[in-house]
């Protein structure tokens, strides 16, 4: 058999798409187990209230209701939901228990659970639950939280989750001596990942076996298994997390949430499988929010625009509890504030404030989206002040290849080794400017065509990827020649199956159609790292490569045994081992699998784990947005969008393109539409898709996404860098700058997101337009 081309680098069609597009996918709500009950959750209608009593009697009395429970009914004290990432000292005071006991701290917090044969009956029962709430003042802003008049967690004595200062150089001195400084306050809007498929879980809990099987898991299943096992006093191998198809993760799906404990408890209580599917109203209050920061940013530069220092205070609105993602959002916003630029001195105070809102977690490009918006807006202001072209200002400050690798300093507490690896930031930026025709556009900013003002905005970014624990892969060859890859990495819909199969097919030199990829479930492999931080291609991809390389060696050894010859005389090629002196004599991997089986029932299989030992590659690039603004109505249209992203090497260019475009569109949502709006009482005003606005197909601009492969990663032999987040991280930055350029005659500044017609008109009115 001959292999037509290498699969790596080829835009083959996604292997999962036929199944998913023909409705043969198996999502969590498609899983139906015998005797399965459903569960619904009574969630707090108040942002902040004491619970003086809970009466479940009427709910339990509804015909059909199987059980109902609240915190007081749970025999064993449940542990708090653990911190997985950025677990800074002080956060331990603000962790969430799976169900509220004495107090609720955000609208949507679980208070009680009903188990019924169907969701209708369960919701009827929810209506009859009586909770004696004593409402308290809600803390809804970081300023109110910092003032501390109302405490969200009384025992903590403050609303400051934690705070710290990081930096490098001597920023204060640089500011004293700098000829030019500017200070601005920026805010990024609270919004959320909002995957198309909401969360859902089915628990089968048999305490006698013991076995807790949880369907609907994804993302970090081995971490979650460890903590669920501890929570329920089970050995780890008695807990199985099963991954189904997943309709989008984006950072939010697959973290441990209250429901990951409540569904097993429900199953344990009623001794039958229990399903919970998050409805969209729940999804908007119960799943992590993100992005909600206030950043006071100062920059100091020379008169010719060379940055001397940045100083900042980043305040993250954490919501009511610190969940698994800890301080990622605000800490990464601080770390990435200097961006790909030469910023000799930097000082940043980071504060994590607790409020009466839904807890925050990561959302695609956590902290980067925010940091890029603040910094890139500021750079455009500096350029305007100093009368330097914005692109020229950036070229003057982007770090050059000779300055790389660059150790950025301990900009996240404990992260002492963070180092930007090799790259050529100016080259990626120049590619963008050429593509978008910047030379033509820079003198046309603010041009009016058909009563709309046009502006082109640009922004640069740098973005880390593939942090975290090792990833695992196991490759098994069957007697029929089929190949199974098992990995601890998850698929959240991004094409993991296809990408891993491409690597395996190339390294085993086989037809990709022989390969099946099984992912995520804890039953597949002994351990795994999980899927986040644009990891899968780098981590799981290299684990598959290593397993394939091992398998090739194993095949040669097996063939040597079979032929009773020296392995040095054998070679592996095109899915078979042949004799070097007689290439016509071959043993295919299928024949070798049969031979292995015949020897004590051995499996032809290999295992590997890939560990990059914390050496991260940084993707980088630039975005450009062309916007047209109807000045009289404030309506913004993004007409054209171009982005470049250096990703080392594209495993599947079409999938890379999909990641960039998908990220960009989500970024347009976060810039123009997505917004979790709370009132002063802490009520969420955007509790449905009528009010929480996601971008749709009618909002899409003309998009050009260019993946650059000029700077392969040094830290893995295939050269991959993460490619999942570069599309989103600089969208608010580029669009914000574009809007300002379009409206340059009116001197409107964009410091706050989202940019809406109403806000634009308010600014234009103030400017007399």
């Amino acid at each position, binding site marked *: 058999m001959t292999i037509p081309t290498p699969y790596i680098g080829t835009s083959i069609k996604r292997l999962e798409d036929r199944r998913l597009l023909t409705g043969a996918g198996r999502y969590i709500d498609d899983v139906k187990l015998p005797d399965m009950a459903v569960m619904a959750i009574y969630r707090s209608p108040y942002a902040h209230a004491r619970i003086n009593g809970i009466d479940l009697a009427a709910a339990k009395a509804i015909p059909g209701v199987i059980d109902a429970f609240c915190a007081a009914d749970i025999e064993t004290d449940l542990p708090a939901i653990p911190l997985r990432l950025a677990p800074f000292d002080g956060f331990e005071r603000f962790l969430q228990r799976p169900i509220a006991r004495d107090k609720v701290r955000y609208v949507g917090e679980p208070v009680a659970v009903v188990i019924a044969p169907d*969701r*209708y009956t369960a*919701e*009827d029962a929810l*209506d009859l639950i009586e909770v004696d709430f004593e409402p308290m003042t809600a803390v809804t802003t970081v300023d109110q939280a910092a003032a501390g008049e109302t405490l969200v967690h009384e025992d903590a004595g403050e609303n400051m989750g934690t705070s710290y200062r990081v930096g490098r150089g001597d920023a204060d001195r640089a500011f004293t001596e700098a000829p030019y400084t500017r200070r601005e306050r920026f805010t990024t809007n609270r919004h959320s990942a909002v995957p198309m498929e909401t969360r859902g879980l089915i628990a089968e809990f048999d305490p006698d076996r013991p076995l807790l099987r949880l369907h609907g898991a994804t993302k970090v299943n081995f971490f979650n298994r460890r903590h669920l096992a501890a929570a329920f006093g089970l050995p780890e191998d008695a807990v199985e997390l099963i991954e189904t198809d997943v309709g989008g993760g984006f950072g939010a799906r697959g973290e441990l949430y209250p429901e990951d404990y409540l569904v097993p408890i429900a199953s344990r209580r009623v001794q039958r499988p229990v399903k919970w599917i998050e*409805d*969209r*109203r729940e999804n908007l209050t119960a799943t992590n929010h993100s992005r909600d920061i206030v950043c006071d940013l100062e920059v100091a530069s020379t008169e010719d625009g060379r940055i001397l220092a940045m100083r900042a205070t980043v305040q993250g609105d954490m919501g009511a509890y610190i969940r698994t993602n800890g301080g990622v959002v605000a800490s990464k916003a601080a770390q990435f504030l200097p961006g790909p630029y030469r910023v000799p001195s930097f000082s940043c105070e980071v504060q994590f404030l607790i409020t009466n809102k839904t807890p925050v977690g990561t959302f695609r490009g956590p902290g980067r989206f925010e940091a890029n918006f603040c910094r890139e807006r500021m750079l455009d202001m500096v350029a305007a002040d100093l009368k330097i072209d914005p692109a020229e200002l950036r070229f003057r400050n982007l770090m050059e290849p000779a300055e790389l690798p660059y150790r950025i300093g301990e900009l996240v507490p404990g992260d002492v080794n963070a180092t930007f690896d090799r790259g050529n930031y100016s080259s990626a930026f120049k590619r963008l400017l050429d593509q978008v025709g910047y030379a033509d556009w820079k003198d046309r900013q603010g041009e009016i065509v058909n009563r709309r003002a046009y502006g082109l905005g640009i922004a640069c970014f740098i973005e880390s990827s593939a942090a975290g624990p090792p990833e695992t892969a196991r490759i098994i060859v069957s007697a029929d020649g089929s190949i199974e890859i098992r990995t601890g990495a998850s698929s959240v819909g991004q094409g993991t199956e296809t990408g891993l199969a491409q690597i395996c097919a190339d390294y085993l030199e086989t037809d990709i159609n022989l390969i099946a990829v099984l992912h995520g479930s804890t039953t597949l492999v002994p351990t795994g790292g999980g899927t986040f931080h644009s990891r899968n291609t780098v981590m799981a991809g290299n684990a598959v490569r290593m397993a394939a390389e091992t398998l090739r060696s194993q095949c040669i050894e097996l063939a040597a045994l079979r032929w009773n010859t020296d392995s040095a005389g054998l070679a592996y090629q095109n899915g078979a081992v042949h004799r070097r002196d007689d290439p016509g004599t071959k043993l295919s991997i299928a024949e070798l699998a049969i031979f292995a089986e015949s020897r004590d029932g051995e499996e032809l299989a290999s295992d590997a784990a890939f560990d990059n030992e914390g050496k991260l590659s940084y993707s980088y690039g630039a975005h450009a947005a062309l916007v047209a603004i109807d000045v*009289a*109505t*404030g*309506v913004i249209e993004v007409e054209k969008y171009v982005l470049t992203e250096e990703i080392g090497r594209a495993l599947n260019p079409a999938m890379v393109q999909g990641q960039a475009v998908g990220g960009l569109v989500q970024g347009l949502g976060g810039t123009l*539409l997505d*917004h979790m*709006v709370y009132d002063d009482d802490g009520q969420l*005003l*955007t509790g*449905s898709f*009528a*009010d929480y*606005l996601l*971008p*749709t197909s*009618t*909002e899409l601009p003309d998009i050009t996404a260019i993946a650059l492969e000029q700077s392969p990663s040094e830290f893995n032999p295939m050269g991959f860098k993460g490619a999942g987040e570069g599309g989103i991280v600089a969208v608010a930055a580029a669009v914000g700058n574009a809007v300002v350029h379009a409206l340059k005659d009116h001197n409107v500044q964009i410091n706050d997101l989202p940019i*809406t*017609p*109403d806000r634009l*008109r*308010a600014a234009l*009115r103030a400017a007399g337009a």
Partner: protein
Amino acid sequence: MKPPKFDYFAPDSVERALALIAEHGDHARFLAGGQSLVPMMNFRVATPSALIDLNGIADLRGIRIDDEHRLHIGAMTRTREIEMDAQIARANPLLHAAVPNIAHMQIRNRGTIGGSLAHADPAAELPAIVLVCGAAIQIVGPGGRRSVGAMDFFEGIFETALRDGEIISEIVFPTWPAARSWAFDEISRREGDFAMVGIAAWFDLDASGKISASGLAAIGAGDTPLRLSSGEQILIGRSPGADVFARAAEAAATDLQPASDIHASAEYRREVGEVLVQRCLQTAWERSS
């Protein structure tokens, strides 16, 4: 997001529907296209004890033009049918132009004109078109048949002249002069969203080229769709032109009664309402001249 239990009836005649509502009383509701009522039921904001489904009543559907060129649209006619109907494009081009702004095609496939009028969302398009055209709303109920002019139909947010047990049977649009100038425009956050503000406009010219009659209406700018009579009065007796349109728009804006919500402030609605009046008049004039 599941509704509580309710009874469901699917009568095949208006008489039977009226009998059912009489029988099931205050907590029964008629079901038209269900594009507003059903989501409200799923949120448990509306909790009817019974639904009386009008979808099976053939008499309530259909589009026809009578001998006097009036357009009759049965209350249960789908919005999408209005959008796709070639004779409506001639018989009331303003209505025809406004309809594609209603939500999304999937919603227009189910939503009905009668349902929209009975629901009376102040940001909805059809109520404003009915209002600006001076259409008559035909109603049938326990007291027999009656006709209510659009000016008297909309009473408040989600409140209409419909009384307990009554059904809209048909909407009758007055004859549309072939030479009439017209335009519709609205601003929404995304295509298909409820308008933050929207304007419907028309005017007729007399033999001397002066405006002899006009209609201006706004959506999203008050508790009901609003007729902007101050703006209409400016137009009457004057020749069309940018100056007149600007003055009319300024006057029309004084009739807006907008409120603020999370999508737009009252100031925005008033200001952009004025812009849209001016633009609609200009578009209407350019299209017909």
